[in-house]
């Protein structure tokens, strides 16, 4: 089975000459359907860059990106846009909600763009908003929402519909721990249903919902956690000491 998303030797350089920034250096990352991966690292280590490249929003300077086995460089602009809209749910670090649409309209938009009838799209959108505790905020506009509410609307928009790949950039940054937990449980549920997920976070509690945690530093993957040994190992002496 091919990975839902695979980055091979991906590097990204911004600018040139003295202002050159190596945001990513030879990054390999492969995420299977059903797997939730967290990416941790200090500010500026390349987390958002990694995610935008995985989400086909940006192209690598060198290296290859494969989505469900298809090499991205081989797709036309249109095809790429379709893949992005249909199969990738993206939560931006700064939410990117459309100011002229209400919360529920923002969430339903990707479905409507995909040809789902308005009524069905709105119903699906309402369902996800309710799961995130926002049923009462559905008809508000983004500038009438708190930071944490906007963030949850952005998450709802990313998970609505039949996405195969979820990419989330600091999806819990504006949330208190229990709301953050609700979001992570939701991403985990999606991954248990076969979706591949990549969550960027510098919050270790949020990252610990993932099956695997990848550590970035100065644009390089420097380490990752071993697959979970299961809760039994908590009973073994010396686990956390």
């Amino acid at each position, binding site marked *: 089975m091919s990975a839902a998303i695979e980055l091979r030797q991906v590097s990204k350089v911004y600018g040139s000459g003295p202002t050159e920034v190596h945001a990513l250096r030879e990054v390999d990352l492969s995420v299977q359907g059903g797997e939730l991966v967290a990416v941790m690292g200090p500010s500026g280590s390349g987390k958002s860059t990694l995610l935008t490249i995985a989400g086909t929003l940006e192209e690598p300077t060198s290296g290859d990106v494969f989505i469900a086995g298809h090499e991205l460089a081989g797709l036309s602009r249109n095809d790429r846009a379709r893949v992005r809209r249909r199969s990738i749910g993206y939560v931006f670090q700064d939410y990117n909600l459309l100011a002229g649409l209400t919360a529920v309209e923002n969430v339903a938009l990707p479905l409507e763009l995909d040809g789902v009838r308005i009524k069905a799209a709105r119903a699906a959108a309402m369902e996800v908003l309710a799961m995130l505790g926002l049923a009462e905020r559905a008809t508000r506009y983004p500038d009438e929402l708190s930071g944490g509410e906007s963030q949850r609307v952005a998450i709802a928009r990313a998970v609505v519909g039949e996405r195969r790949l979820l990419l989330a950039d600091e999806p819990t940054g504006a949330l208190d721990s229990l709301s953050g937990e609700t979001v992570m449980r939701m991403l985990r549920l999606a991954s248990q249903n076969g979706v591949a997920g990549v969550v960027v976070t510098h919050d270790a*509690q949020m990252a610990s919902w*993932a099956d695997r945690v990848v*550590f970035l530093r100065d644009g390089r993957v420097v380490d990752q956690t071993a697959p*979970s040994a299961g809760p039994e190992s908590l009973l073994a002496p010396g686990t*956390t000491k």
Partner: protein
Amino acid sequence: MSIRHALLALLSEGPKYGLQLRQEFESRTGEVWPLNVGQVYTTLQRLERDGLVESEGSGGGGPQNVFTITPTGSDELNEWLRTPPDVVPPPRDELVIKLLVAMRVPGVDLPELLQVHRRHLVQAMQEYTHLKGEIAEGEVELSLVVDSELFRLEAIVRWLDTADARLKRLPARTASQDPTSAPRVGRKIAWVRR
């Protein structure tokens, strides 16, 4: 956590037999309060001596007696619940000591050392979170205990992240430089913790 207060808490729900207390203590609090069940009766006798509980029955504070919490006992329980925990950290935090030592050992890759500990801690957190994912909605006690472990471990990870960033800002320096700083740090910390 003392058996005294665990027993007072169980009795605050209503009068109970000694035997019943023993069983409840074992089944309901075993996970949270891993204490010696054998001490239950001696503790009950002491609570009675101190006027915090009263017993009725064949005497001797045994299994057949019914125990009731007294008003003094309730006061004692409430006061204990509101007593702040000791916020002074353990005298020697092993990880802090390791980093301070490593800073003076030539050839140690400090970011790599910090990452080894970070990975270990995050892995432990993954296991706790996995457990949390399996806990049913109603088992709130267990969730609370797991949360507290997670916050404790997270605090250490954040300390590692901060240490990492602090060291990155430093101009490169060599081991054995500034040999006077260690005792000075010790004295200043002792002052802060007074």
